[in-house]
C-alpha cells in the first residue's frame, strides 16, 4: 500500500512538473506583449502628431519664457521673468525646449519618413508632405540653438543613433531648402488621394496650400541667409517667386487646439506667473493708432493700455507695479485662439524686403508692404473702415532712406508675427529691426550679455553630458556655448 502510494506520488510529481514547465513557457509568451499599445500602425496618426506638435511648438517654453521677452513683446512675472534680464541659468528650460522639439515633431516625422519610403508602404506624396513638416521642425530647432543634430537627429529608433552628430547651420539650411524644393515639385502635381485626406491637421489635405506653405517656408529660409550668403539667398528667392506663395489669409497655416485646455496662451494669461505686454509693443501700437492694439493688448484695471518695461532689475521691478499692467489681448489668448505657423502677411513683408533690397524697386516694396499690413489687419478681423484709416496713415507707407524703410518694414513685420513670438525674435536677430538697444540704464539688468539681446539658447548640461563629444565639436565650430554667440545666419 505504502509502495503504491509512493509510486502514485512520483507519477503525480512528474506530471505536475511537466505540466508546469510546458504551460509556463507558453504563458510567458502570452503576457510579453504590451496590451496598452499597438506594435504597428499606419503613418497617418504619427504624421498628425508631428504636425500638431509643430503648431504647439510655437507655444513652447522657448516662445513663452524666452522669445516673447527677447522680442520685447511682453514681460512675464515671477520665475518666468528671469530671461528678460538676459541671464542664462535656465538649464532645465533649454533642455526642455531642445527635447520637446525632437520628441514631438522630429521623432514622429522621422518615423513617417521611414514608413512612407519603405518598399511595402512607400508613398511619395505623403513623404513630400512629411518632409515639409520635418523641414519646419528642424528650422525651428536650429534657429534656437545654431548647430544641432540634423542628419542623425531624431533617429534613436529608426537608426539606433543615441548620440547623433551635429551639423552646421549652413549645411542644415542648404539641405532644408533642397528638401522643400523636392516636396514642392512632388506636391505640385500630386494626387491628393495619396496625401492625408482624413488626417491632415494643417490644411485638410489641400495640396495647393501645402505647396504654398513649403514655398513660403523656403522663402523664409532664403531671407534668413540674406546677410550671410546673399548670393544663395537671391538664387533661392528667385526660385520661390516662380512658385505659388501664401498670398491670402486663406493660405495661412493655423490650427485651433480643441484638446485639453486649448491654446496654451489662455492658461498663461489667466494663470501664474502673469504676462504683461511691454511698453515697447504698446508704445508702437498706440503711437501709430494701430487698430490691432485692442486685439493684442487688454486694457488694465483703470481702462488704459499700460506696458511693462523690459529688462528691469529686481529692485526697479519691485517698484514697477507690474501687477496692474495690461495683459495679453483676449483674441490672442483665448482657449480657441488660432495658433499660427505661418501667415500671408509675413510673406508679403518678406517680398517687400526683396523688392526693396534685391530688386531695388521701392514702389513694389511699398505695395507689398501695404498688402502685408492689410493682410495682418484682416487676419485679426479689424473692420474695413479701420483698415482703410490705418492704411491711410503715414505708418502704412514706406518713406525715407532705405534704412528707414527697412526699419519701418521690420517693425511692421515684428507686429504682424504676433503671437508667433519665436519668429518675432528670429526676425529681430536677422534684421536688427525693431532696434533693441543695449541696456545701459542703471535700472536695467545687464545679465550675461552685458545688456545685449541674447542670440541663442544654450546646449543644456544634460546634452553636454549625454552627447558631449558631438556637442563639443559643434561648440568648437560655432563658438562658445553662450547666449550671445551669434548663430550662422545672424549677422546683425
Amino acid at each position: 500500500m505504502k509502495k503504491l502510494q509512493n509510486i502514485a506520488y512520483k507519477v503525480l510529481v512528474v506530471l505536475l512538473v511537466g505540466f508546469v514547465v510546458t504551460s509556463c513557457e507558453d504563458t510567458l509568451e502570452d503576457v510579453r506583449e504590451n496590451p496598452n499599445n499597438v506594435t504597428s500602425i499606419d503613418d497617418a496618426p504619427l504624421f498628425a502628431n508631428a504636425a500638431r506638435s509643430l503648431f504647439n511648438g510655437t507655444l513652447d517654453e522657448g516662445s513663452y519664457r524666452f522669445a516673447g521677452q527677447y522680442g520685447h513683446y511682453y514681460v512675464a512675472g515671477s520665475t518666468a521673468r528671469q530671461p528678460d534680464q538676459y541671464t542664462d541659468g535656465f538649464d532645465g528650460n533649454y533642455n526642455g525646449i531642445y527635447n520637446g522639439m525632437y520628441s514631438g515633431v522630429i521623432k514622429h516625422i522621422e518615423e513617417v519618413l521611414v514608413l512612407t519610403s519603405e518598399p511595402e508602404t512607400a508613398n511619395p506624396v505623403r513623404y513630400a508632405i512629411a518632409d515639409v513638416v520635418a523641414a519646419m521642425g528642424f528650422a525651428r530647432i536650429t534657429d534656437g540653438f545654431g548647430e544641432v543634430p540634423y542628419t542623425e537627429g531624431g533617429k534613436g529608433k529608426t537608426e539606433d543613433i543615441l548620440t547623433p552628430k551635429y551639423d552646421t547651420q549652413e549645411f542644415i539650411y542648404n539641405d532644408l531648402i533642397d528638401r522643400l524644393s523636392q516636396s514642392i515639385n512632388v506636391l505640385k502635381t500630386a494626387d491628393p488621394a495619396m496625401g492625408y485626406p482624413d488626417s491632415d491637421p494643417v490644411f485638410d489635405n489641400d495640396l495647393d496650400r501645402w505647396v504654398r506653405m513649403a514655398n513660403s517656408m523656403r522663402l523664409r529660409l532664403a531671407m534668413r541667409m540674406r546677410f550671410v550668403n546673399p548670393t544663395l539667398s537671391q538664387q533661392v528667392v528667385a526660385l520661390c517667386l516662380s512658385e505659388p506663395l501664401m498670398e491670402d489669409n486663406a493660405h495661412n497655416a493655423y490650427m485651433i487646439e480643441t484638446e485639453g485646455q486649448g491654446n496654451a496662451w489662455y492658461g498663461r494669461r489667466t494663470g501664474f506667473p502673469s504676462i504683461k505686454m511691454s511698453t515697447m509693443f504698446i508704445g508702437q501700437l498706440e503711437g501709430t493708432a494701430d487698430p490691432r492694439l485692442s486685439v493684442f493688448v487688454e486694457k488694465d484695471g483703470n481702462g488704459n493700455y499700460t506696458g511693462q518695461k523690459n529688462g528691469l532689475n529686481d529692485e526697479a521691478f519691485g517698484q514697477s507695479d507690474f501687477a496692474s499692467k495690461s495683459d495679453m489681448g483676449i483674441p490672442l489668448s483665448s482657449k480657441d485662439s488660432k495658433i499660427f505657423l505661418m501667415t500671408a502677411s509675413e510673406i508679403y513683408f518678406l517680398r517687400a524686403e526683396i523688392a526693396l533690397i534685391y530688386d531695388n524697386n521701392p514702389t513694389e516694396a511699398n505695395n507689398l508692404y501695404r498688402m502685408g499690413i492689410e493682410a495682418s489687419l484682416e487676419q485679426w478681423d479689424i473692420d474695413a473702415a479701420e483698415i482703410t484709416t490705418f492704411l491711410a496713415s503715414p505708418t502704412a507707407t514706406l518713406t525715407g532712406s532705405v534704412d528707414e524703410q527697412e526699419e519701418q518694414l521690420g517693425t511692421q513685420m515684428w507686429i504682424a508675427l504676433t503671437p508667433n513670438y519665436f519668429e518675432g525674435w528670429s526676425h529681430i536677430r536677422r534684421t536688427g529691426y525693431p532696434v533693441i538697444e543695449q541696456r545701459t540704464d542703471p535700472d536695467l539688468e545687464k545679465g550675461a550679455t552685458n545688456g545685449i539681446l541674447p542670440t541663442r539658447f544654450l546646449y543644456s548640461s544634460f546634452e553636454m553630458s549625454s552627447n558631449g563629444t558631438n556637442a563639443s565639436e559643434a561648440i568648437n565650430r560655432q563658438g562658445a556655448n553662450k547666449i550671445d554667440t551669434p548663430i550662422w545666419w545672424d549677422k546683425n
Partner: protein
Amino acid sequence: MNKLLLTLFAIIFSIASYSQKSVSGQILDQETKDPLPGVSVNVKGTEKGVPADFDGNYVISGIDENTILVFSFLGYKTQEILVGSQSIINVQLEIDAQSLDEVVITALDIERDKASLGYSVQQVEPEEFAVAQENNVMNSLQGKVSGLQITQGNTGVDGSSRILLRGVTTIDGSNRPLVVIDGIPVSNSSSGGNPNGGIDRGDALSDINPEDVASITVLKGAGAAAAYGSLGMHGVILVTTKSGTTQNGIGVTVNSSFNVTEIMLTPKLQNEYGMGAFGAFSPIGGDGRPNLDYPSSWSYGPKMEGQDYVNWLGNDDVFSPRDGNPYKEFYQTGYSFTNGVAFEGNTDESSFRVSITNQNTDGTIPNNTLDKNTINFRASSNLSDKLKIDGKVTYIKSKVKNRPELGEGAANTALQLALMPRDVRLEDAKNNIVDADGNEIKWNLDNTFNNPYWALKNVYNEDNRDRFQGAFSAKWDVSDNFYITGKTGLNYVVTDFTTHAAAGAQAQYNGLGGYSNSSSKSTSWNSDILGTYTKDFSGFNVTASVGANYRSDGGSSISVWGSDEKVPDFYRISNYAVVGDSDYEWEKIVYSFYGLGQVSYGGYVYLDATIRNDNSSALPADNDSYWYHSENLSFLFSKFFGIESDTFNKGKVRASYAKVGNDTSPYRTQSSYSIDQARTLDYTVASIPGSLPNPNLKPEVSHSWEVGTELGFFNNRIHLDFTYYETLTEDQIMAVPISGSSGFSSYTTNAGSIKNKGFETQLNLVPIQNDKFTWDMGLSITKSKSTVESIDESLESITLNSLMGVSIEARPGEEFGTIYGLDYLRDNFGTKLITDEGLAQPGERIKLGSINPDFYGGISNNFSFKNFSVRTLISYQSGGEFFSWGRGYRQMFGTDATSLEGRETGIIEEGINENTGFENTVPISPLLKNYTNNFVSNIRKDLIFDASNVKFKELVISYDIPKKALNSVGIQGATVSAVGRDLFFIYNPNGDLDPDASNGSSPTATALEHASLPSTRTYGINLRLNF
C-alpha cells in the same frame, strides 16, 4: 572546505567503531508538545552526538548504560539524562526564558535554529510592535534592527515609510526589501509626492495589522533571500501572523488603544516684519488693496510697531506682530482609536484565530482621516497524522480622506503657512476665503498658491482601498523523512481614488473646478510546491528540498478626469465640460525551480545551499531565464571546541555567498505606439513612447557575501552579533537618460554597477537580572556605503532626484546619492567674490553632501520590575546631509527667522570685491540677498544641512494587572500601557528643521526637504485584556 569535510569524515568513522548499545526517542517542546527538529543529542564528555530529525526523533548508538545524554537546543534548557537500562528516552524540553530568540523563521517559512544559519537574521517580538501601535507596523522596527533604516514621511495619516535594508544597491527602483506575509510576498512599492507636489497614497505595509502579527523576521542579506528569487534582492521582511496555536481552549483578547498626535517641530518664523518689500509697505492699488505681487507680498516690509496701515484685505488695521505659531494655530491635535478583539481556540487537531480590528484616526491636518477595518481569520488542522492544512483570509478595508498635498502643491497648507506675510492673521484668512463672485481671496497674486482655508474647504480627495489576502498551505508527511508542502496565496487589492476641487481658485484647474476618479485592481498570485527529504546518517543530518514557484502579478486601472464644472458642489464626471479617460493593464509572470540543501553535523556545523532558476516574462524570450545560488555556512566553534561554559556560552562564525538575478518591469523590450487620448479631433493621433525599448535586455545580477559572528557570554547576558557584508550589483536594468536629439528621453539597458558594503552590529546586554528586576539593553550600529562603480558610458552621472538646482546623483567613483549644487563664486583661496553691487555670485557646481548617513542605529533599554515594564528606544543617525528648499523659500519670502539678519542695516556679504580685491563693504538689502542667492543664482551651499540626529523614538510603560485582582471578574490577564512615540530630538543640529522630513518614501526622499508638513509626536494608552 575539503579539509573540513575530511575532518568530519574522520570523526564519523572514529565514532562508528565504538558501538555497544543504542537509544532512540522523540523530543518535544514541553509546552506545545510539538516535535523539536534539530535538537542536539550528545554524549556527555565526548564529542559524539546526533541531531534529532524533522519530527524530533533521534537514534544514538554506540553508548552504554553509564552514558549521560545531553539534550541541548538553543532557546531551550539543556537536559541531561542517564541512559541506564532504557532503550527509548522521550524528552520534553522547556523553553529557556533567558535565551534570546534563537528559533527564527527563515525563508519559505521554515523555522530554524538561529545558530544554524550562515547569514544575518534578526527577529522582532510582538511586544516590540504590538504595544506601540503604529499605523504602519514597519515604523516600529526603526532603531531595533541593525541594517534597517526606516523613515516615516510627513505625509499625513497612512503615509508611506522609506525602508532600506543595508542601503542602496540599485540605481533604478525603490530598493525596498521584500515583505512576505505568511509565505506570500506582497507588493511593496514606495509612494509619495515630491517637492513639486503630489500626495502620498501610502504603502502596502500599513495594511498589516500589528495586533495580528506573531513575529517579524528580517533576513538581511541576499544569502537569506535567495529562496525568494529576485524579489528578495534587497532583503526580506517576513511577517508571520498569529495562528491561535498557543492557547489551549478558547481565548479572547481585547485590545484598545487611544493615541493623541501633536506637532513636535515646526520651522521657526520671524515675528517682527510684515508685508512689503525693501522695508516699505506695498503700494495700494486701484482696488484699495495693497499690491499683492512679488516681492511686495513678501515679509520684507516695515517693522511691525503698531502703525496704522491697510492690510491685505484692503482694510484699515494695526501693523503689529500676530501672536502665536501659525502651524500650531492651523493644525489640530490628532486622535486615533484602535479597538480589536481576537478569539482563538485550540483542540488537539485544530486551531483557529479570528480577529477584528477597527482603527479611526483624525490627523493633525483638519479633514485628514483614516478609517480602517481588518478582519483576519486563520485556522489550521491536522487532518490526519500525515496531513496538516493551514488557511488564512484577511480582509482590510480602509478609507483615507484628504491625503495632504505636499511640497510646492497649491493646496499644501504647510507651504502657505510658511510663506504667508507675517502680519496676516490666520483668522482673517479663515474668514475671507471667497469674494462676492465666488473667487478665492488670498494675500498674493501667485496663482499656484491657495489660501489654506480655501483649500481645506474646497480641495478634496478620498482614497478607498480594499485588500483581500488569502493563503492556503498543506503539509503532507509522505514518510518519516519526506514531506511535501504546497502553498498558494493571493493578494488582491482594489483602490478607488477620487479628487475634486471647487471652481473659484486659479490654482486648481484654472479656476474652473475639476474632478478625477481612478480605480485600480491588482492581483498577485504566488504558488509554491516544495518537497523535502531529510536523512540522518552517522552524525550527519541532511535535508534536501526541491521546489517550484509560480508567480503572476498583474493589474489594471481606469481613470476619468474632468474640468470646468457645470453646477457647483456636485462631483460626478457628468458635471464637467472637458473630460478625459484612460485605461491600462499589465501582467508579469515568473516561474521558478529551486533546490535547497542543508547538511549539518554534530549540531555545530551547518552548510546550506540554494539554487534557483527564474524565468520571467519581463525579459526578452532569448534571455528570460536566469540562475542564482547561495551558500551559507554556520560554525558553532564554541561547541566544536567544547569551550562552552556559563561565561562563554556561545561562539559562532558564519559566512554566506549569494548570486541573485533580477528582472525588470514588464514591456521594456518591445517597441510600440500609443494611441493618443483625443476627444475632439476627427483624425487619429498616435505617439511613440519616450523611452526606447531594448530587445536585448538581460537579467541584472548581484553578487554578495557576508561574514559574521555571534558571541554569547554569561548565558547570553552579553550577546554580540556582528556582520560585514559586500554586494556588487551589475548589469543593472535601467532607463538611461539619453540625449533628447535622439528623439527619446531614455533608453532601457543594462548599465551600471553599484558596490555596497558595510557592517552591522547588534549588542544586547542584560546588566541586571533577578526575580524582581530585569534591565536589558540593546545597541545597534549600522554602517552602509554604496559606491557607484560605473554607469552607462555615455553619461557622466545619473540624476536620481532634483529640486531647484540641487541634484542627487549617481556618479562613477562616488557614493550613491551624492548631493550636487552650486557653490559661491570664489577665488583660488576660497574667498567669495562679490560684485560691485554687493552681491555674491554663483560658482562651481560641487559636491555638497551625501544622502547617506555615516552610521545609524538605535539604543533600547528595557526595564521590568514586578508587574511593571518600561521600554525605551533612542534612534540615532550620524552624518548625511539634506537640502532644505523650505528654508530657502522662507528666506526669500522673508518669513524665516533667519531672514531677520540685516533688516535695518543691510547685509554685507563676506568676501572680496571681484574687481578691486578689497574686502566687500557694500551692504545689500536682505530681500535682494535672499532672492538673488536662493532663487536667481541658485547658490545652494548654505541650504545644505547636517542630517545627524538623536531622537527619543519610543517610550512604553506597561503594567500587568495582578491576576488575583482579575480572576474574580473572569479575566485571565490585563495589561495597561502608556506609549509615547517620536517624542523629541535629543540632538538636532538644525534646531527647527527635521532631518527626517520627507514627502515620500523613495530612496532619495529624505534628501530634498520642501514645505514639509510639521513633524508630529504621539502619546497614547493601550489596554489589553485576555479572557
